[in-house]
């Protein structure tokens, strides 16, 4: 019975206790109210009867009163009469004697309640004494059996109800606990399997679409994301190994050649040799710093140091910075930038780097004589968009996703200079600024890169 230890079972028990308590309170209240009401009604009837008999005595005299009492008092369950003289000797009525006042409870001078032991059963009687004259004393009362019966059945029902509540509570607790246990068990089971190394394991999602299914779905999505990241990390390590080993190997080979020349032929190492080696090392260092920047951007560890950046101005400046480079490729650059400032809160150095990288990429991979580079900054109600597009060879749509991934260099470009971190770095920078970036087939034929910043970043100009 390990259910007994579960949170759901304990919660059910606590609710059961709380529910019993409130049920107890409600029943008690009803009990008290009902008995009060019954007593009041009884008192009213007794008082009316007493009043009637008193009137009878006043108007018709003692003998008429006695006849009336004899007539109506055959059944002691209905009403109880006792007429006596001042010595307490019974004159008429269906009650043989009044018990001594010790066994009775008096409420005020006239009202009493006493236990009456009949031959076969006992009863409680409640009634009122009336002094008709110095010589005559009348008691009119009622048997409380009806009230006691109702009270007893009340107590009995309450007891049964409590039993039911306890049985239902425990049973419900066990059912709920078992249900929870089953569903959590599935999640736990999957977690254990994953810990044992089966990363493809997923949690069964039920059909009821309740909070457990939502939890399972979210956990599954989390697991998907984790395994995606793990795969990416594996890819990255492999690529780092490849991309960093290549220049290091080249460096080593060059050093070997130089060393051979030096030892065999007494060759003098020239500044050119050293510069070549420095260049190789610089490449490795560039790749490293790009990797570090990416890692820091993606981890989101340090908050961005942001400032107001006027995108219109920034794009114009970067375009003029890169304009000679574009011109050198023989291509034409066209620039569309709105006249008004479009100010967002951003890190200026990072944005410059991102936009600069895009233009550099175009120069490197797309631009040639008679080709075009279009840079278009625009804004709508909700977004500021930057579109950088060319009419170069472009990349196949199937490769769009890969191009944004770290080291996701397309095979055709492996031979080209670069470290495969350019676009991923741009992508990470834009995401870090809350923007979105997508690759598309440019309207003019080549690759289009679209960057959107949500307008809430925009600072309204006064």
């Amino acid at each position, binding site marked *: 019975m390990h259910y007994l230890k579960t949170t759901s079972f304990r919660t059910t028990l606590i609710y059961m206790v709380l529910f019993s308590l409130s049920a107890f309170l409600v029943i008690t209240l009803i009990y008290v109210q009902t008995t009060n009401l019954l007593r009041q009604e009884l008192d009213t009837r007794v008082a009316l009867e007493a009043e009637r008999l008193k009137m009878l005595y006043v108007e018709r005299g003692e003998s008429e009163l006695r006849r009336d009492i004899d007539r109506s008092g055959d059944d002691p369950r209905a009403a109880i009469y006792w007429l006596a003289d001042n010595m307490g000797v019974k004159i008429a009525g269906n009650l043989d004697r009044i018990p001594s006042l010790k066994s009775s409870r008096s409420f005020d001078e006239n009202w009493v309640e006493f236990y009456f032991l009949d031959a076969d059963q006992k009863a409680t009687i409640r009634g009122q004494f009336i002094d008709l004259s110095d010589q005559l004393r009348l008691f009119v009362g009622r048997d409380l059996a009806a009230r006691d019966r109702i009270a007893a059945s009340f107590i009995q029902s309450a007891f049964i109800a409590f039993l039911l509540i306890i049985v239902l509570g425990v049973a419900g607790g066990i059912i709920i606990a078992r249900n929870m246990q089953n569903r959590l068990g599935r999640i736990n089971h999957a977690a254990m399997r994953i810990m044992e190394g089966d990363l493809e394991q997923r949690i069964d999602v039920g059909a009821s679409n309740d909070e457990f299914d939502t939890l399972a779905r979210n956990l599954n999505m989390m697991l998907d994301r984790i395994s995606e990241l793990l795969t990416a990390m594996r890819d990255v390590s492999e690529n780092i190994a490849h991309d960093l080993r290549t220049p290091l190997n080249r460096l080593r080979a060059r050093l070997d050649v130089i060393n051979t020349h030096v030892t065999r032929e007494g060759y003098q190492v020239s500044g050119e040799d050293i510069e070549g080696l420095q260049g190789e090392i610089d490449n490795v*260092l560039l790749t490293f710093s790009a990797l570090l920047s990416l890692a820091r951007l993606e981890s989101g560890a*340090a908050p961005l140091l942001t400032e107001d950046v006027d995108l219109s101005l920034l794009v114009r400046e970067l375009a003029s910075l890169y304009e000679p480079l574009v011109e050198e490729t023989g291509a034409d650059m066209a620039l569309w930038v709105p006249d008004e400032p479009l100010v967002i809160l951003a890190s200026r150095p990072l944005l410059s780097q991102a936009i600069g990288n895009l233009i550099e990429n175009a120069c490197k991979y797309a631009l040639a004589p008679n080709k075009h580079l279009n840079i278009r900054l625009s804004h709508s109600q909700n977004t500021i968009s930057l579109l950088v597009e060319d009419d170069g060879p472009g990349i196949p749509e199937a490769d769009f996703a890969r191009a944004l991934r770290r080291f996701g260099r397309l095979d055709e470009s492996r031979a080209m200079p670069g470290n495969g971190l*350019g676009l991923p770095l741009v992508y990470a920078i834009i995401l870090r600024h809350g923007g979105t970036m997508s690759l598309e087939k440019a309207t003019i034929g080549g690759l289009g890169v679209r960057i959107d910043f949500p307008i809430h970043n925009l600072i309204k100009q006064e």
Partner: protein
Amino acid sequence: MHILLAEDDIKTALSVQEGLGLHGITSSHAGDGALAFDLCRKESFDVLIVDRMMPKMDGLSLITALRESGIQTPVLILSALGEVDDRVLGLRAGADDYLVKPFALDELIARLEVLVRRNQGGDQSALVCGPLHLDMLKRQARRDNEILDLMPREFAMLSYLVENAGQVVTRTMLLEHIFQLQFDPQTNIIDVHMSRLRAKVDKGFPIALIKTVRGIGYKIDEH
């Protein structure tokens, strides 16, 4: 030139000191921030090279403490923390320049020279370098009384070179100063701009004033 090198890594410190010595720059070394602070109050240096991560007092606190006690010696931060934000924080703390490890010795020396010179020279409304005459107010450049048709950015590049005439200015320094870019474009973008500037400044004249310093950068010289 006499500088103070505050750097906790002995090997780096020794190799930097040796490199500086090759260029005739003498240096003192402090292994932690507190020692560096004491030395600065006793001795006068032309430039301080400060590592960011140091025992006892880190680089940024050292700079703040120096500035608070009225020592205005130019400071160059040397740090392995190369992210743009680190650079901005360093400059905000009162540093004058920021160089990321690993760095080329030539780059360090070029920057030191510029820092010392900047500290000596005041504001000038005109700069002269041989036949070149720059009117800083009109943002106009003449060579042998012939007005050069320069774009604003080209004028900025030229004046930066002339301000540091005779000194090497590296590509990264140009990027930072003229283009306000704090990253290394992976292309020869500075070279392209420089060749345009050259075409306007030197083309058709017997002496080329702007010279390429191989593997380091550029300098302007009247000879």
